[in-house]
């Protein structure tokens, strides 16, 4: 089946991102296609390019990134939630006159419409919230 996950909890403050990653790995192990992870509300912090957790802790950002690298999972970040929280890619940083950027590929800033689309076009959409 084609799966999409919605992550609404920030990293290291709630379990949502851990739960989502664990579910992702289990779904893939059962032969499903994890096509999309959508990050919304504080969940957008899971896309922070500069995240540098201690080496003996799970690296959640790298965990999601590796889903893309190994399985082609699209990592979509709500642009409205991201901009409010300082999650900007190079283009948005330039547009808003900010130095540096905090989000990069394979994470991509997209609109909320992409979440609606994920709900319609995938067989299952599972939500992980704080």
């Amino acid at each position, binding site marked *: *089946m084609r*799966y999409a996950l919605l992550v609404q909890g920030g990293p290291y403050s709630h*379990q949502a991102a851990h*739960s989502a990653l*664990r*579910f992702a*790995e*289990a*779904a893939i*192990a*059962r032969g*499903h296609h994890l096509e999309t992870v959508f990050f919304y509300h504080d969940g957008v912090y899971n896309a922070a390019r500069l995240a540098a957790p201690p080496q003996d802790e799970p690296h959640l950002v790298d965990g999601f990134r590796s889903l893309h690298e190994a399985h082609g999972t699209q990592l979509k970040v709500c642009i409205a939630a991201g901009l409010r929280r300082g999650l900007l890619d190079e283009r948005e940083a330039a547009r808003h006159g900010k130095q540096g950027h905090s989000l990069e590929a394979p994470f991509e800033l997209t609109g909320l419409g992409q979440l609606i689309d994920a709900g319609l076009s995938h067989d*299952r*959409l*599972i*939500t*992980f*919230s*704080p």
Partner: protein
Amino acid sequence: MILHTLNRSPTESRVYRQALAAMGPDDRLLLIEDGVQGALPSLVRHFGELEGRLFALREDLEARGLAGRCAAEVLVVDADGFVALTEEADKTVSWF
């Protein structure tokens, strides 16, 4: 059939009441994260009529030192079983 997930303990939040009120007669409830506390014998009464449709996630029980302490009527599943439940359900609703 809809799968409902709940990540709050009945001691912490009353959202479980909304989940129960929303459930149809065939729907299933999976306790995850802090919600697994509800599987304890002292708290499972909050989920009254769900025999055979009440599940708890093994990894979250183990993380809290609660493995083996569930009420007998709770069906314990691991992450693989969680995915299987989402396969069997038409859709999944998350309560938090």
